[in-house]
């Protein structure tokens, strides 16, 4: 095999392999709701697959030792460069046949890998939906495809490089080409394709690309017309079949991954927004899921009869800070809190920092919260919350963290002692940090250690450098007077009664809704603090309260 072809194949195989890895990470991350182990598990499965592929190529290349050695010695005796090309020149007759066979083997492997790669995501979705398979069972499937993909690189090296003192250098070129291809796959598929195309379209495009590459290799390995015609016809037939079958194969793929065997016939998401930063899906009832995990509900009605997402917690803000003018909100979620707080008369500015622009698009599509996105008081920044705080010196009256569930990957970034210290430095005098502990006892302990003044309200924590005064009279007054889009949030004829119901101290999951810092510290004496280094809620400490 000549050098240029080997380098091109090496780069393309790297491109395809990394692109599949990215599509699988999206799928597996969604399936596991962003488990911290998702990356390492997928990586392990992928690498185990490559290991199996390397073993397969080891087996396939066993018989060639004598041939490579004789090719080297003959090439050497003619004074030729022992690097690429030695095989072709020295044993010409044998080489033509061998070369064609090598190219065909590679073509078959590439097509096989791409066909199975194309079917992987629908197969997992179907397995979860029809057979309720555990999420870990997706990993062997990834490994099988990775094995087929992993066979190609050592085979290319075997076909293209003779054993001599330049072997290491020749291999390094192939390896570098493979990595350049992998990098391009990571950038093009991860950063660009997934920002504009759906998972289904990306899968089809990638599989078609692989099919064309494999087909071209098999085509070039055939010499007679009829073989080439059959190859072309087969490739076209398979390609057409893939295109035609992709809509039914990928139909409700995210619904299957999220609801599993609980997905009823005909149920589908109201909207699916796919961006490079992740997938946001909205159920027919208005529940928002980010990366397969619950992330809010379009609702601004505090009436307990309708308040499924407990928006009462947002209405509490002006009662725990007397004049919330500048608010920083890290994480948009369903935008319900933004809609509520942007309408409060004392609020002058709300900065929202959200990593995934899909949330903004989802909010725009909801009649309940759409107006908040373009509200004159609101400034939306697409980016990372910690990075925003590090880059800006602004101080806020209230910092609200719309935290993801404590056990999800990167939850530490908004729950750790290090982060809370950073947020604390961005508070104005008497400012508060108001965040969702997602019931994690470690998050509650961490908050109580960082802030000299702290209270728990249901699953929320309120931390400050100054004493916190909860003004329940104001809470009732605010609820009665609160308007969104010019309309009162509570009906006039029952506003006072409903506001009283909202504020009533009914137990929260069987425990008191309010708790002081001292009570938390007593209750959690032996619980460790979350740090950036231990990431304890992600990896080990899963206990909750209440």
């Amino acid at each position, binding site marked *: 095999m000549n050098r240029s072809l080997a380098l091109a194949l090496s780069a393309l195989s790297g491109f395809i392999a990394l692109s599949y890895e990215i599509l699988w990470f999206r799928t597996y991350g969604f399936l596991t709701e962003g488990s911290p182990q998702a990356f390492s598990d997928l990586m392990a499965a992928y690498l*185990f697959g490559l290991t199996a592929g390397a073993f397969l190529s080891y087996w396939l290349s066993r018989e060639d030792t004598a041939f490579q050695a004789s090719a080297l010695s003959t090439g050497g005796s003619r004074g030729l460069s022992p690097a690429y090309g030695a095989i072709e020149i020295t044993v010409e007759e044998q080489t033509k046949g061998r070369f064609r066979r090598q190219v065909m083997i590679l073509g078959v492997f590439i097509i096989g890998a791409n066909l199975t790669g194309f079917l992987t995501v629908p197969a997992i979705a179907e397995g979860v939906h029809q057979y309720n398979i555990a999420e870990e069972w997706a990993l062997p499937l990834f490994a099988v495809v990775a094995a087929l993909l992993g066979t190609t690189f050592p085979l290319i090296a*075997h076909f293209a490089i003779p054993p001599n003192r330049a072997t290491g250098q020749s291999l390094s*070129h192939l390896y570098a080409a493979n990595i350049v291809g992998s990098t391009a796959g990571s950038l093009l598929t991860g950063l660009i394709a997934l920002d504009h195309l759906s998972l289904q379209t990306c899968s089809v495009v990638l599989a078609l690309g692989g099919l064309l590459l494999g087909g071209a290799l098999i085509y070039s390995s055939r010499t007679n017309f009829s073989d080439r015609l059959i190859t072309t016809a087969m490739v076209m037939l398979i390609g057409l079949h893939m295109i035609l079958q992709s809509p039914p194969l990928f139909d409700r793929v995210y619904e299957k991954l999220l609801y599993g065997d609980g997905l009823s016939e005909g149920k589908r998401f109201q909207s699916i927004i796919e961006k490079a930063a992740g997938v946001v899906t909205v159920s027919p009832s208005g529940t928002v899921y980010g990366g397969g995990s619950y992330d809010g509900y379009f609702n601004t009605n505090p009436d307990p009869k309708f308040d499924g997402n407990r928006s009462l917690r947002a209405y509490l803000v002006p009662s725990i800070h007397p004049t919330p003018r500048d608010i920083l909100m890290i994480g948009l979620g369903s935008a319900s809190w933004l809609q509520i707080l942007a309408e409060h008369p004392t609020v002058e500015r709300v900065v929202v920092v959200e990593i995934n622009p899909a949330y903004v698009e989802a909010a725009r599509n909801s009649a309940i919260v759409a107006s908040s996105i373009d509200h004159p008081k609101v400034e939306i920044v697409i980016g990372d919350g910690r990075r925003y705080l590090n880059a800006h010196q602004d101080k806020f009256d209230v910092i609200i963290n719309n935290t993801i569930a404590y056990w999800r990957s990167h939850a530490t970034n908004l729950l750790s002692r290090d982060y809370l210290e950073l947020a604390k430095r961005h508070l104005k005098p008497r400012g508060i940090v108001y965040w969702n502990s997602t019931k994690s006892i470690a998050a509650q302990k961490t908050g109580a250690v960082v802030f000299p003044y702290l209270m728990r309200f249901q699953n929320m924590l309120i931390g400050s450098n100054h004493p916190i005064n909860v003004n329940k009279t104001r809470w009732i007054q605010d609820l009665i007077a609160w308007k969104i889009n010019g309309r009162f949030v509570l009906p006039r004829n029952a506003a006072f009664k409903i506001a009283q119901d909202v504020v009533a101290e009914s137990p929260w999951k069987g425990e008191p809704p309010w708790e002081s810092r001292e009570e938390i510290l007593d209750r959690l004496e032996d619980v460790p603090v979350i740090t950036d280094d231990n990431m304890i809620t992600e990896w080990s400490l899963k206990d909750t309260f209440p």
Partner: protein
Amino acid sequence: MPIILIFFLASGWSALVYQVVWQRVLFRVYGVDIHATTYVVTAFMLGLGVGSLLGGALSRRFPTHSIFLFGAFELGIGLFGLLSINLFEWVARFTAGTSDLFVACLSFSLLLLPTLMMGATLPILTGYASQRSKNVGQSVSQLYLVNTLGAALGAWSAGHFLLSALGLRGSSVVAAVVNLSLAIIVLLVWRRVSMPSNVQETQARIASA
């Protein structure tokens, strides 16, 4: 050869532990938004690519020093691993919250040295092994096999044991200890083999292999 394979398996194990740990540290500092994460992952891969070219060139230039080069690179990776978290955190103090372009350059700069050394090891060992087996496919497959197997075990053990038991800093120290132990053993073996009295015997063994 079997001992080299075991060493290369351990080397792959520690490389993936580093990758999981370093990505977490850099994502925390520079953000988990899609651009920052892509830059970090890309920097990791580009470093491996450049390292591969370097390893190839060294393998050609010093074909009889493969074992020494492998040991030296393992030593370098181990030393970097030992200091890595402190270095990243020190740099982060001055650069957290910086622009996307700067994040890209910084990620590349921070990861270039260790990933370059990691990337160099495969071509170096392939050059060494294929000289002995006279079969590139087998040599590459064997080395690639054990290295990726080690890497798979590294990714899995980091996600399931190391990070929960030791945190980021502790995990990187364990990986560094593995690299440093490998380096010490490999360099001691190289020193013994390269002593004048042993050279001829070794060459004869290679010739008869």
